[in-house]
C-alpha cells in the first residue's frame, strides 16, 4: 500500500492541490486580518482624518478575502452587508440620504442597524460618507457621526462573525464527509469556484464596469473611485487570487506566470480610478489587462480544472 501511494504521488507531481494550505494559510489569516482591521476601524474616532487610514487598511483586508464568498461569509448576508457593489441603481447614496434626512434613530442600536438595507451598510456606504462631497461636507453633524459609527461597528461585527464561523467551517472543509462537503472533491470544487468567480468579478466588474463600451466608456462606474481605490482593488484581488491559486494548483509555474503578467500590467497602469478609459490610449491598456485576467480564467478552465477532475461540462459551465 505504501508503495502504491508513493507511486501515485510521483506519477502526478503537478496535480497536487492543498486544501489544508488554502484554509490555514490563505482563508483563516485573511479573515483574521479583516476582523482585526475592522475592530480598529470601529474604534476610530468620528473625524475623517482619524477614520480614513483605518478605512483604507480595513478595506484592503476585505478586498484580499472578497473572492472567498462561501460558507460563513454568506450566512446572514454578512458579505453583502460588508460590500454592496456594484450598485447599478445608486441604492447606496439613496439609502444614506434617506437615513440622514429622516435622522433615523435606527443608527443608535446595533441590532436595529443590522436590519437596514445592505445598500446603506458596509465599506461602500462608508466610502460615500467619508469621500463623497454630498456627505463629507456635513461630516461635523452629530447624526453623521452616529451613522458613521453605526456602519463601522456593523462592519466589525460582520467581520468578527465570519471569522468565528470559519473556526468551525475550516474543520468541515479540511475533513470532508459532512453536510457541507461530502467529499474532498466538493471542497476542491468550492475553492476552485471561489478562485474562478473572484477573477471573473475582477475582469467583468472591477475592470468591465468602468470600461463600458468603446463608444461609451463609464469611468464614473469604477469601484471605490471616490477614495481613489479602483486600481488598488484590482491589484489586491489579483495578488489574493494568486495566493489561493498557489494552493489549488501547487507548483504550476505557467499559472503563476499568468498572474505575474496581469499584476505587472496593473501596477504599470498609473491610472488609479480608470479615468483614462475615456481615451483610446488609456482604454487599450485597461483592455490588455482585462485580456490577461481572462487568460488566467481560460487556463483555469482548460488546464487546471481537468487536472483536478472537476472539468465543467457543456451545460454545467455557467448558469443559464
Amino acid at each position: 500500500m505504501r508503495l502504491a501511494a508513493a507511486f501515485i504521488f510521483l506519477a502526478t507531481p503537478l496535480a497536487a492541490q492543498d486544501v489544508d494550505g488554502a484554509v490555514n494559510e490563505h482563508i483563516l489569516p485573511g479573515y483574521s486580518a479583516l476582523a482585526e482591521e475592522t475592530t480598529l476601524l470601529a474604534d476610530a474616532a468620528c473625524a475623517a482624518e482619524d477614520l480614513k487610514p483605518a478605512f483604507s487598511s480595513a478595506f484592503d483586508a476585505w478586498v484580499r478575502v472578497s473572492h472567498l464568498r462561501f460558507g460563513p461569509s454568506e450566512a446572514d448576508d454578512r458579505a453583502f452587508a460588508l460590500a454592496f457593489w456594484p450598485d447599478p441603481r445608486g441604492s447606496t447614496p439613496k439609502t444614506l440620504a434617506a437615513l440622514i434626512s429622516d435622522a433615523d434613530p435606527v443608527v443608535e442600536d446595533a441590532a436595529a442597524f443590522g436590519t437596514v438595507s445592505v445598500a446603506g451598510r458596509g465599506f461602500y456606504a462608508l466610502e460615500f460618507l467619508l469621500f463623497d462631497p454630498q456627505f463629507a461636507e456635513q461630516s461635523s453633524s452629530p447624526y453623521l457621526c452616529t451613522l458613521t459609527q453605526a456602519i463601522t461597528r456593523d462592519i466589525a461585527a460582520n467581520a468578527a462573525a465570519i471569522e468565528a464561523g470559519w473556526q468551525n467551517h475550516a474543520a468541515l472543509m479540511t475533513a470532508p464527509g459532512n453536510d457541507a462537503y461530502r467529499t474532498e472533491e466538493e471542497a476542491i470544487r468550492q475553492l476552485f469556484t471561489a478562485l474562478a468567480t473572484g477573477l471573473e468579478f475582477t475582469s467583468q466588474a472591477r475592470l468591465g464596469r468602468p470600461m463600458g463600451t468603446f463608444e461609451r466608456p463609464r469611468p464614473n462606474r469604477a469601484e471605490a473611485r471616490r477614495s481613489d481605490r479602483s486600481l488598488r482593488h484590482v491589484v489586491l484581488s489579483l495578488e489574493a487570487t494568486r495566493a489561493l491559486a498557489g494552493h489549488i494548483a501547487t507548483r504550476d509555474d505557467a499559472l503563476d506566470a499568468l498572474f505575474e503578467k496581469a499584476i505587472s500590467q496593473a501596477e504599470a497602469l498609473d491610472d488609479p480610478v480608470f479615468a483614462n478609459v475615456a481615451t483610446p490610449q488609456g482604454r487599450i491598456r485597461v483592455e490588455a489587462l482585462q485580456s490577461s485576467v481572462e487568460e488566467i480564467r481560460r487556463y483555469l478552465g482548460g488546464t487546471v480544472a481537468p487536472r483536478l477532475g472537476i472539468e465543467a461540462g457543456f451545460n454545467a459551465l455557467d448558469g443559464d
Partner: protein
Amino acid sequence: MPARRSFLVGLLSAGLAPRLSWADAGSPAFLSAARTPAGRYVLCGLSEAGSISFQIPIPDRGHAAAAHPTKPQAVAFARRPGTFALVVNCATGEVDQRLYAPEGRHFYGHGAFAEGGDILLTTENDYEAGRGMLGLWDARNGYARMGEITSGGVGPHDMKLMSDGRLAVANGGIETHPETGRTKLNLATMQPNLSYVSLDGVVSEVVELNPALRRNSIRHLAVDGRDRVGMAMQWQGDVADSVPLVAVHDARTGKLMLGAAQDQRSLLGYAGSIAMAGETVAVTSPKGGIAQTYSLEDFGLLNQVERPDICGVAAIGAEYVTTTGSGLFENHSGRPKRTQTRLNWDNHLVSLVS
C-alpha cells in the same frame, strides 16, 4: 420511419403538400440546440427515438426555441445576452428570417407563442433601466415588432403560455448588463418572482417564494394541462445551503408547493431544466449530473438517474426524454431507448408534441 420520411420528402418535392405542417418536417418530436464536434452551433429536430430529423447551422450558441403551435416553424434564440433570433422553417431546414432585439434590449434565450401562434413573445432586458420586458412580434406579418410589455420583474428568462391566454414568466431577479457580460449586478437585493402577465401588459398575479429563498432565482418553467406551473430555481447563495430548487404553483388554486431541500441537495444549487408529465415533475442538474422526478401529489421523490452534464428534459406521454451535454439522448418511456451522438446537446429540449 425512414420509409415514411422519404415518402414525405417525395410529396414535398412533387409539390403535393400545399401547406406545410409539423409532420412535413421529418416529424420531429423535439427541438434542441447543440454544438458539433467541429465547434459549430446547430439547431436540431429530433424524433422520439433520438434520431436527428434536421440539423440547421446557427451563428452562435443557441439556448431554447419556441415552436409554432401549428406551422413547422420554430424561433431559435441565441444564448443570453443574445441579440438575434432565427425563424427556422423546420420542413425545409431554411432560416426564413432573422429577428433582432431593438436598441437597448437583448434577448434572454426563451420565447413563447400566444394567440394560436399569431404572436411571438420574447423575454428581454431593458438593461439601462434594469427592467424585464416581453417583446411582442406579429407572426402573421413577417414577425414585425408590435411593441413590448413589462415582464413583472427583473431578469425574465423562461416563459410559458397558460390556458387562459396569459403568460407565466420566470423573473429570475438577476440584473445583468451586456457591458459586463454575465456578471450578476444585484445579488444582494435580487427579488425573483413568477408573474402572470396578459398580452395587454397587465400583471395579474405575482408569486414570490418566502424571504429566506430570495436568492433562489426562478429561471425555467413547465406548465401542464391543468395550469400547474413547475419552476426550476438556481440558488445564488452558498452551495452548501440546503434549499428547495423545484416548486409548483397551481395557477387555478393559488397553491404553492416546494420540494424538500434534502432531496435536492444533489442538484448542487442548480436546477437546469424542468418538464411535467402526468402527475409528475422532472428536473435536471448538469452541475450535479442528475435528473429527478417528483410526485405532484406530495412532492415525494419518485426516481433519479445520474448522467454527466444532463440538462435537457421534455415530457413524452407520462414519461420523460432527457439529453446531456455529452450527446446522450434517452427516452425513458416504455423500454428505455438511448441514442448517443457526437453533438453536445444544449440546455433545453423543446417538446413539439403538446
